[in-house]
């Protein structure tokens, strides 16, 4: 460390109260920025949970106007044959998905998302279902439910007022059609809250209101060694449908949700507020810190410290408090994510969040530092001779 950098550091930490209030302000701002950004990232991730949990295929084929996973714009059943006719398709199966009403054993009526997967192959089912659970769909009236929702949204209220988890063997009805819970699956926490119920494609069609168009998606497996992007392009060209990989479909869903809901704006405002508050606290404290040291800094200038060196000293001080404040703040934010993760909080600390957060906090500190430095630059070193 250069001697004057160390001098700057000593000047900074010597005034404990100022130093701690400076760090505390930045801890608060960093905590807010990282925590809110991580919750936002967690929610954004969850928008694609259902898509990412689907197993066994390479492409999702859908109406080109479909904006997201919950957007049902079904295709004619002939779509399946058209997709199968495209060169490079190993197999293609229909998938039904729609919002229907379900009545629980206690008589409560709830909205559920019914997903019908291919009867023969059972492909497109949830990644978190056991082989036995999936196979149980071959039984009459069988449905699979999310195990995380058994004791929450699907819980059965009993006459004595207590409630019990929905259990395998329980009978429910979906759109006035009888169904039996034959198994459960584990799913990644989802942004959309209505329970997902898996059944077979043909059974889902019997439950759903009659429609001319009944295929929500066609799931495609490419031939071994096929170029997925080229296959998607051929499907789009040959059928006029949209063909997306799982990641592309998840990204489209995320983009749509963030654009159409107030989530981005709400989190953006909170993050911006945290940033502004942090910047203001840092600026105010740094400024008063420099003001209090004005005479000492003027003495240093008189003794031969150049303006650029003074600026570097302030930058050293800013970096020390910035990195320390951000480190503690980001650490506390991560800790809060771990502690609250068990309560179902959507929270993911990404490297992007950490790097951007650090850049934002350091930028606010540097801005505050530059404001202070301007004053020092204009300081007349001859003022040290004045009483």
């Amino acid at each position, binding site marked *: *460390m*250069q*001697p*004057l950098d*160390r*001098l700057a550091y*000593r*000047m900074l*930490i*010597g*005034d404990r109260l100022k130093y701690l209030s400076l760090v505390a302000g930045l801890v608060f701002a960093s905590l807010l920025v990282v925590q809110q950004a991580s919750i936002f990232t967690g929610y954004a991730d969850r928008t694609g949970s259902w898509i990412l949990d689907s197993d066994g295929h390479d492409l999702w084929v859908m109406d080109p106007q479909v904006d997201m996973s919950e957007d049902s714009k079904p295709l004619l059943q002939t779509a399946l044959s058209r997709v199968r006719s495209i060169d490079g398709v190993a197999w293609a199966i229909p998938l039904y998905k729609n919002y229907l009403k379900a009545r629980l054993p206690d008589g409560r009526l709830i909205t559920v998302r019914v997903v019908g997967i291919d009867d023969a192959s059972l492909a497109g089912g949830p990644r978190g279902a056991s082989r036995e659970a999936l196979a149980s769909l071959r039984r009459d009236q069988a449905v699979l439910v999310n195990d995380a929702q058994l004791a929450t949204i699907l819980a059965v209220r009993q006459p004595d007022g207590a409630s019990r988890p929905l259990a395998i063997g329980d009978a429910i009805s979906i759109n006035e059609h009888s169904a039996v819970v034959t198994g459960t699956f584990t799913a990644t926490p989802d942004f959309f809250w209505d329970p997902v119920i898996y059944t077979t494609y043909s059974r889902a069609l019997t439950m759903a209101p009659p429609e001319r168009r009944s295929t929500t998606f066609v799931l495609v497996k490419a031939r071994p060694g096929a170029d997925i992007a080229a296959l998607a392009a051929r499907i789009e060209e040959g059928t006029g449908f949209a063909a997306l990989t799982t990641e592309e479909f998840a990204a489209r869903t995320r983009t749509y949700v963030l654009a159409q809901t107030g989530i981005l704006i709400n989190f953006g405002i909170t993050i911006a507020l945290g940033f502004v508050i942090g910047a203001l606290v840092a600026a105010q404290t740094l400024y008063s810190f420099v003001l209090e*040291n004005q*005479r*000492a800094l*003027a*003495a*240093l*200038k*008189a*003794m*031969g*410290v*150049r*303006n*650029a060196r003074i600026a570097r000293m302030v930058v050293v001080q800013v970096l020390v408090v910035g990195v320390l404040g951000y480190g503690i703040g980001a650490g506390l934010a991560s800790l809060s994510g771990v502690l609250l993760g068990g309560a179902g909080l959507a929270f993911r600390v990404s490297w992007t969040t950490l790097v951007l957060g650090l850049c934002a906090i350091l930028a606010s500190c540097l801005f505050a530092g530059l404001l202070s430095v301007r004053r020092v630059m204009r300081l007349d*070193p*001859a003022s*040290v*001779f*004045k*009483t």
Partner: protein
Amino acid sequence: MSAPAIHPPPLAIRCTGVTKHYGSGDTRVAALRGIDLAIDEGHLTMLVGPSGCGKTTLISILSGILAPSAGELSVFGTDPARMADGARAEWRAATVGFVFQQFNLLPTLTAAENAAVPLLIRGVPWHQAVERGRARLAEFGLGDRCASLPRELSGGQQQRVAIARALVHEPRLLVCDEPTSALDHETGERVIDVLRSTALRPGRSVIVVTHDQRILRYADSLLRMDDGRIISESEPSSDMHA
């Protein structure tokens, strides 16, 4: 047989027609009105005069902090006013030691660290600089207060730290603004002894701005200023008897 040649001491500082104005137009104020001055090496020069007479402006110019508006200046053969800002700062760091009336010690540094500041400015490693600062403080009787912060020191002790700081890098020119104002008689005498011994070394010079009548007799040369001019230059003994 010819008489041996007598060489006058070389000049430390020469000013010719130095003026300094602040502001412009109607608000223009003349702080110095044509200063002609020659200060020998090895001399302790004292500058006296009423407040606002231009003493501070003059020492600011001589120490390279301010540039004159007009006139010629030479400090140990160099005109700092002709240097770029950065070079002038480096020249100050290498050539000039300052003792400020208000000490201007850094409040969060220890006495030894404060005394080491000019060395730190010149890039001397921290521990080496502080060690030399400690040695300087010991010369001023503050060996046991090296680890004290300025607020833990009396005014006199702070002044001695400031003087140790001014001398730690062996500057050729020492500029002191009221160096004894906070000191008792005995300590003031010790400080002046140090300043004199510094001035007497070859290639050095000391300029002291003071109102302290007790120390005028120690000056080799006494300059009286008024209204931006040097109104008299004398040996202190003759001046004091005047």
